[in-house]
């Protein structure tokens, strides 16, 4: 029983639930503020995303006549629930280790796909033509970026398993421990291409410029989110804030866990995420335009796939024959 309480706390309080939500919204606020500064504006307060969520809580949720009501209202719940669980699966170096009973890296991969699927379902259930366009774009984009991310994960698993002298390991805790002892993978030339591929995966998964094609506000009016209002829309905002934390902390766990513990480790982990957001998202988003869906599709099947495959091939070569 004690064990299940621990899991519940991990999902609802720390590092999932409240903590991840606060972190995700603050990262979003920092992103908006720094973007405004880069454009020569004052920008919204750091806590603006919190205000938005509270505001949406006071509004009414309307369901369009053409929508399938149950599916329309269930989609944001499913997406948010999957992200709550996903945060609890990712270790924070030296601070938090997930219970191996909840799952491993493979489960996490499946959970990571659910918000995208929830958006697709939301778009198609809303009965709006813009939602349908958003649905088809989200699907095309997912097909393009899911391949590379699987290869990235397998490359990291192979690399760690090989170094530990057994089969690929899909335990994130083991991957983090190995890197804490032997240096982060981001310093290992074999893993550089995989890390680069992951950097492209991040904005695509979160729907950020240049890959915000499914939710393009100026083209398809936020696509799947067009018909959502009030608390249901707030749930989607919460989902994307949690997803930002999940994908960022997955990147940190796969490539750059620090050999620190306790409060310092936690502060450093948050700092890593903030730096990644400001460099990888804000700077890119204010200086780049949106890609078309066909460009993004070809881009992902070209560069990230090639890069992750390169890392995987080298890691597999050493597993088969030589030593690293």
């Amino acid at each position, binding site marked *: 029983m004690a064990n299940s309480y621990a899991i519940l706390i991990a999902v609802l309080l720390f590092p999932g639930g409240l903590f991840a939500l606060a972190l995700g919204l603050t990262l979003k606020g920092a992103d908006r503020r720094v973007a*405004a500064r880069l454009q*020569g504006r004052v920008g*919204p307060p750091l806590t603006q995303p*919190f*205000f938005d969520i509270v505001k949406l809580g*006071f*509004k009414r*949720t309307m369901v369009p006549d053409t929508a399938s009501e149950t599916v329309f209202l269930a989609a944001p719940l499913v997406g948010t629930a999957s992200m709550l669980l996903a945060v609890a699966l990712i270790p924070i170096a030296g601070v938090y280790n997930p219970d191996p009973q909840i799952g491993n890296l493979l489960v996490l991969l499946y959970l990571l796909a659910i918000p995208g699927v929830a958006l697709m379902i939301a778009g198609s259930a809303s009965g709006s033509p813009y939602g349908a366009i958003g649905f088809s774009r989200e699907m095309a984009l997912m097909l393009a970026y899911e391949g590379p991310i699987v290869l990235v994960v397998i490359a990291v698993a192979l690399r760690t398993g090989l170094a530990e002298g057994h089969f690929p390991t899909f335990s994130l805790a083991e991957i983090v421990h190995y890197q804490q002892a032997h240096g982060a993978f981001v310093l290992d030339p074999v893993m550089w291409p995989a890390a680069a591929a992951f950097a492209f995966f991040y904005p695509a998964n979160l729907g950020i410029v240049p890959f915000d094609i499914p939710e393009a506000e100026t083209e398809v009016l936020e696509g799947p989110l067009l018909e959502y209002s009030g608390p249901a829309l707030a749930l989607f905002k919460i989902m994307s804030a949690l997803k930002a934390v999940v994908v960022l902390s997955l990147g940190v766990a796969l490539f750059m866990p620090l050999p620190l513990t306790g409060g310092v480790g936690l502060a450093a982990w948050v700092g890593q995420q903030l730096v990644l957001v400001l460099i990888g998202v804000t700077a890119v988003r204010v200086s780049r335009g949106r890609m078309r869906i066909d460009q993004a599709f070809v881009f992902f099947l070209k560069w990230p796939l090639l890069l992750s495959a390169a890392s995987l091939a080298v890691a597999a070569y050493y597993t088969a024959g030589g030593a690293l």
Partner: protein
Amino acid sequence: MTVLARLKNLAARSPWLYRINAGSCNGCDVELATTALIPRYDVERLGIQYCGSPRHADIVLITGPLTKHVLEAATRIYAEIPDPKVTVAVGVCPISGGIYRESYAVCAPIDQYFPVDVNIPGCPPRPPAIIEGVAKALEIWRQRL
């Protein structure tokens, strides 16, 4: 102050604007876009965002004299905006019809069809006037939450 009142104060800091062009000559719309886009006024510092979907809107800005042709569409879009909402009429056209008054094709004044809370007169109103009007709308909106 109760928790609910505190939350309402927080919520009032996130107004999302939606624009309905009810047959305007686009003069007011250009001013709205100017207010929104140029860094000098930076309305995002007040938490203001323009949104593309009426379902996300809190404050509605209506421009134009409400032509007969657009009346039905404008009424339908207005009904799609979830409560609580505040209606702001931008420009002189929604008040009297402006240069289109006495035309057979306009339904101005628009408060026959929409419950207008704030009027921002001008042809077109300048950005500071628009910001002041939205600030007044914000006060009304805070009470309606």
